[in-house]
């Protein structure tokens, strides 16, 4: 069965870029969430193998999503990558201390993202 990747990102274009970068790698089942709510809806219903999330999203931010994922026994070990525009060092540290496995800074090259995904899924 192909691996499931959840992408939480509020920019349509950014989501499209991420999806096409991942699709180019092979057969992944990609679930898209345009905000934190949609991600929360998907998580309990799908066995997700990897979560990619943006930090700056309205209502529920990426850090809160990381905290939710890490504090839930079901996804405690699900790899989690934050993709965010370079910005506050504090936000980055918080993301990692909350349990994100990696932090990818936008703009990133397709190879960087693909490399990270390989690292966690292969």
């Amino acid at each position, binding site marked *: 069965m192909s691996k499931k990747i959840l992408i939480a990102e509020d920019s349509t274009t950014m989501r499209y870029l991420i999806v096409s970068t991942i699709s180019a790698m092979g057969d992944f089942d990609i679930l898209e969430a345009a905000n934190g709510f949609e991600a929360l809806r998907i998580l309990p219903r799908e066995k997700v193998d990897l979560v990619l999330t943006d930090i700056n999203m309205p209502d529920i*931010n990426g850090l*809160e999503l*990381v905290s939710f994922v890490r504090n839930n026994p079901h996804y405690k070990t699900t790899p989690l990558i934050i993709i965010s525009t370079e910005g506050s060092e504090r936000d980055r540290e918080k993301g990692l201390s909350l349990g994100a496995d990696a932090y990818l800074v936008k703009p990133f090259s397709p190879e960087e993202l693909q490399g990270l995904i390989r690292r966690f899924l292969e």
Partner: protein
Amino acid sequence: MDDTSSSRAIKDFLAEAEEIIEKLNLDLVTLGDSAESGDYDPEQLNSIFREAHSLKGLSGMFGFNDICDLAHHMENLLDSLRLGKVSLDAQVVEVLFASLDSLTRLVNGKGDDEAFTLDVAPIMAQLEAVLSGKPDTETSLLAGIDPAILTVLTEYEEHRLSENLKKGRNLLRVKANFNLSSFDQDLAELSDLLKGQGEVISTLPCAGDSIEHLTFQLIFGTASSPEEITALVDAEGTTVELLRGEQESAVSPDDLQKGAVALETASPPAATVAPAVEAEESSSLRSISRTVRVDIDKLDTLMNIVGELVLSKGAIFSLADQIKASGVLELGTELQKATRLLERRLDELQKGVMEVRMVPVAQLFEKMIRIVRRVAGEHGKKVGIDLRGGETELDKLIVEDLSDPLMHIIRNAIDHGIETVEERIAAGKPEKGTICLWASQKGNHVVIEVRDDGRGIDPEKVRRKAVEKGLIAADAELTREGVYDLLFTPGFSTRDEVSDLSGRGVGMDVVHNNIAALSGMIEMESEVGQGTTLSITLPITLAIIKALVVRISGKTYAIPINAVLETLMIEHSAIRTIERREVIELRQSTLPLLRLSEVFDLEGPQVATDRSFIVVIGMAEKRMGVVVDELVGQQDVVIKSLGGALSFVRGIAGAADLGNQKTILVLDVGGLMSEALRGDNALYV
């Protein structure tokens, strides 16, 4: 990424960038207005920050470094603003607007040519200057707040938390348990309820107490007491807890500590949220986003195909008639039935494609807010804008093409119409002028009104100017409408110096032509001292139209059916001549007539009967009768532009393919009426 997907991605980028810029625009206007009063909504500022942030991230991915750098500088300033490191004042708002202008130009430029760029260094220097000129005033009040709460807050949320504490508000934690199926609405309701009483600083989701539930912890800053909030959110499973504030002395550090523990372990034990993978549900989860973005060219292609189909249907219909006429009755009838079914489905298809092309005019109006603000600023005038009917829908292409003329009209209204503050006060008017931008649908047309409450147009002034410019004779008598008409004449400007804003070397005649190109009509009403109203009447769509096919002097023409009010057959004796113009009496009013054979200099065979057909055409409130020899019938036609070479031909809107390889000309009803009624009681394009 291969070439096609990369060009699609760039198109997507441009579309999204445009959306972001429009939103930025709108939000900045609101922010600018509230900054004047010194009391702005932090959430507004934060959303502006997020917009700049998104734009930076996006443009960076595409290697558009100019946009990326500029957005980055804007973001830095906005970040300091939202974190309270820089205070918001008029100067800051101005610099932000100027940056937005450059961003708009960059994005538009790249739409035409990806290599387009601008020197963004000066504007970035301005942004930096504003940023460095302001001292950092932020002091942290966060010491003592539970680290478990702080750890999920972004830097901005931390700032909001300390701002709330600075204002002496209570800090509450509201916990609510919601059903998985409806948590977003429930949470939105709760947030809205709370927002009435304070600020929701953070929303932390946790696993709920059962598989079907999710728990949310809202950190909430408010002037209300915990008891008041408890009463407000009164619902089962919702708890309110004071973290810091009024009763703080009553809360021991131990309690706070407990709060922290509770937060950390808020996710209940295992078995609660098991991933329940159900086939149906997972498939329905795939399509979360309910909208797609489509290139208008693709819709055009679809529309053209539908158009061709409609024409093919027409051809099949006439074949069926011929088959019947040739004696194969049964087959002919069957074919007719089948064609009618096809017709109905085609109608639905056509309607469907048409609907997809429709967009609310609000998109256009929002752009105008910015124009009003900027032009008013440059003239030192105070102008507010009143938008109505933004939900009215128009074909996307019409909306696009309307942007320039509308902008021009608004510039004109502010430049020439609205008086200076001093003049307004002297005239006993409110010092702030108003531009109304109202849209409404009237049958097959959309009417857009631009109304200002300025000084109005003085007919005498216009007359003098026209005489000076040699446009009219010194003793020419002008009706009120004739005066307005002059304003649309090329080369006419009532100001001695052409204003940089409304002038720009072009006048209202360009507006006039732009609207005409959209098969629209423009009318003007003005009252000295009261203001001026321009009404633009536009067809809802341009693509496929139903037309009445008529014959005049042996030639065939199509008249768009949405302009046809009725057809009459009259005796020639009913035609009278008033002031050298042919008219007939129609239900107690006088209907002016137009002979196309004269307009087009047709010398075909005159039909020697004592009767004629009159096609009564109308737009907005105006009526006119077109005299024709024969009514051929009603048909769908796809209008094709005549192209640049023939676009000057007056009275003709374009050519149409009738489906049997015959091309006929489509009458430009607005243009014809304008020509025929010139100087009558309105101004037509």
